[in-house]
């Protein structure tokens, strides 16, 4: 057991190191320079650009050779310093990300969990009913296959612009300052609904199809036929099929929860929702190396943690993993 986890841990650390290195490299391959963008925004006193450009290049640590920049990056990282953002200069990257994370969590956790629950339930249910399978399931296919951008814009157009039920942009009303009050929570929920609904619909379709296919597969498996031959009631057979079918769905769920801090880029762009996804787009547009690095770092750590948790959960829920491990230890 210890050897198993020891080896896993080593692999995870190695992956972390490589992923973070790539994370550092990628923004620097893009054409364009963050300080140029910062200076172009300053505008009115352009004659000071030369002076300020040199100064800020130094502040951002971009005046040293790339190798040195890479080493500085790691040493700053170990001190918990993610740098200063260019997009929202001069806020520290860590703070910018922390301000955005609550929006992601409040949007994505309910969307992922609810669509998982509802999708699996509905998929399992549909697998039992020919009529549902023939009518509603195709709708699930349409939902998952719809380009997300388009679906989200349709929702915004129909419910926001035509029916004027929901606001179409922002995280809460412009007439409010964030506060702990019912008025604010109401406004937050109003702005939250459309992004949530779009994510839920797409997720729901995917989970439902997955579950429906798995159930049909499991019902055709030998053990199901064997149980039936033994005269087990249909309910029992179906329950066993469901238990087996839900395993891969669990992995999928954990993976989705792992990338939660990545936000949902398309959703947040369409609805101008102030989460990490929105930040990633802005960071790319302003060549904000530091913010981009920070966002990706969060994603990397999230994915690795989720994988690690799945490893542990699998040891607990899937006997085959455990047997394999012990065979090794013996």
């Amino acid at each position: 057991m210890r050897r198993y986890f020891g080896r896993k841990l080593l692999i995870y650390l190695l992956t972390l190191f490589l992923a973070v290195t790539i994370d550092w490299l990628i923004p620097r391959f893009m054409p364009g320079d963050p300080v140029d963008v910062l200076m172009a925004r300053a505008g009115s006193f352009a004659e000071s650009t030369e002076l300020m450009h040199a100064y800020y290049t130094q502040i951002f640590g971009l005046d040293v050779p790339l190798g040195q920049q890479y080493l500085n990056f790691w040493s700053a990282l170990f001190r918990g310093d993610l740098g200063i953002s260019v997009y929202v200069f001069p806020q520290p990257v860590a703070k910018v990300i922390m301000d955005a994370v609550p929006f992601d969590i409040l949007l994505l956790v309910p969307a992922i969990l609810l669509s998982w629950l509802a999708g699996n339930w509905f998929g399992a249910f549909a697998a039992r009913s020919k009529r549902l399978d023939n009518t509603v399931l195709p709708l699930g296919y349409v939902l998952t296959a719809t380009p997300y951008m388009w679906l989200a814009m349709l929702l915004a157009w129909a419910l926001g612009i035509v029916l004027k039920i929901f606001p179409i942009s922002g995280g809460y009303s412009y007439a409010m300052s964030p506060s702990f009050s019912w008025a604010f929570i109401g406004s937050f929920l109003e702005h939250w609904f459309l992004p949530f609904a779009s994510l839920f619909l797409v997720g729901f379709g995917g989970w439902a199809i997955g579950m429906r296919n798995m159930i049909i597969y499991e019902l055709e498996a030998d053990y199901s036929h064997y149980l039936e031959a033994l005269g087990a009631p249909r309910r029992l057979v179906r329950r066993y099929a469901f238990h087996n079918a839900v395993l891969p769905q669990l992995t999928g769920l954990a993976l989705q929860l792992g990338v939660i801090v990545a936000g949902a880029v398309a959703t947040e762009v369409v609805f101008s929702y102030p989460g990490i996804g929105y930040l990633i787009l802005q960071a790319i547009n302003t060549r904000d190396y530091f913010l981009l690095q920070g966002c990706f770092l969060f994603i990397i750590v999230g994915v690795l943690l989720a994988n690690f948790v799945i490893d542990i959960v699998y040891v607990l829920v899937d006997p085959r993993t455990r047997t394999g491990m012990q065979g090794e230890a013996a």
Partner: protein
Amino acid sequence: MSTRILKVLSVVVILSVFLAACTSATATQPAATQTPVIQIVEGTPQVVIVTPTPGPEAVTFERSETLYTGGTQWGPPTGFNPWNLGNYAMGTFGLCYEPLFIYDPLADEFTPWLAESGEWTSDNVYQVKVRQGVTWSDGTPFTGADVKYTFDAAQEAPVGISPVWDFLGSVDLVDDFTVNFTFDQALYQGWSYYVYSTPIVSKSRWETKSVEEFTSGLNPEPECTGPYVAESLDQTKVVWAKRDGWWATQALGLDPKPTRIVDIVNSGNNNVALGMVLQGQFDLNNNFLPGISRLVEGGYGVQTYYPGVPYNLSANTAWLLMNLTKKPMDDPAFRKAVAYAIDVSQIVNVVYANMVLPANPTGLLPTWEKYIDQAVVDELGFSYDPGEARQLLADAGYQDIDGDGFVEAPDGSTIELRINNPNGWTDWMESNRVIVNGLQAVGINAQTNFPDFPEYLSQRNEGTFDMMIANDAQIASTPWRYYLWMARNPIEDIATMQDGNYGRYNNQEVFDLVDQLDQVPIDDVAGMQAIISQLQRHFLTDMPLIPLWYNGMWSQVSNQYWTNWPSSAEGAPHWTPSSWRGYWNMTAIRMLTDLQPVEPAD
């Protein structure tokens, strides 16, 4: 033994997971919808982004007393540091920090603001009498020491106004309210820009700050001499609250009516802004909103500065820059042909639906009209004439050798040009297509090219572009700044200076004329005209860049809650109707003091 325990344990875990999954299929759904609601309640306090004065109770702004503005901030506002030029919260300079003078570009006049007067007491000494009876919002009195400190500090910290020390010698206090600026070289034109563009900060508040706090500080609680103090800011907006005891109420009888000003960050989506203008959610919006002309004339309650064409004042000149270090743009005849090939009227009429004006061949903004030498324009100016363009090309030896419909250079090499503008700037992208069509029609093989903004910048700075659209020289007190932009030198430093002349136009005579112009006193209009006339001759002869149209000072206002907006109409206030950075100090602050609330009809 342990295997059995594990097995039992795992069965329990599996069963519980499965049971949860099965029962949850029906039972937990209502419960699950509950959970996130609770999370939201708990999580809400974290949503508070940056609130200098976090109020525990909910604040909803009274609509009839609040002015909603938009169009300035392209990202979350990050504090109130007036030296953080591109990112300070809207209004930091203008509503809070104030200049010595405000400049009125429409009347070409300076109005004393924090200064009571300013005059040249000798050739190189400028004396400012500082206004008395002004207090900072933290209660300390404002004196000449603050003015001296502001300029002195810029010698230490690299900020926007630092280059003033290239020609400024010293700043001295004569008495508490008199400041002498002694210049090594009196550059009257250049200095005229600093007197209305420098935010004066409080010495007592800033002298303890480090250079880093000047250049990279947030300044979360700014001290203000202006009519508003910072109330709060978050990711989507900044909120200003009116303060009692603004000096101008007593001294000039000016009183801004809105008790709050809320500036909303651009959503990156013009349709959202347009919808908010139509719904009256914005009182003043300074975004470019395509098709606004139809709304102005269609009775939607939307107003612009001019009731008809061109609807907006002009804010800057859009040019086609050509890279003079590359062939064939190094040939003046070729550049001239390009100028004749562009149908600017199509850009103005079709792309902008007449929301902009075509540029004068000199590129000088309408507010600088008195500096245009019409004789030079008549002699050397250009207009859309594809026949003339073809003739110019043919005369200079450009002809189609290989029969592909496009001309080759006189040395036989093929010409393939790309015209850059940033991706997503849709009005420029459409204009770019018009330009490309014009060039192709006369046989020049040009294509549109839309790199994203940072790449557009690096191609511009490094001089690797062929042609590009740009509009960097803004409306200002002196046309000298316009020529300064076009004649930045030396050429080898363009990449690091990043302040104009990206086409690398190299003409020492022009550089000298621009330097001469800087030394002409600002009230010597004839002296300025004489030099500017020579400059116009050079630019129209060499044609290093092509002025195309005047970008508008986009401004759409709603009369639903506030009225008496700036307008060209007789009897209406003639101020710049813009919340953009650098416009409050160009009389936009007077727009606030002239606004009247609309009485609610009950």
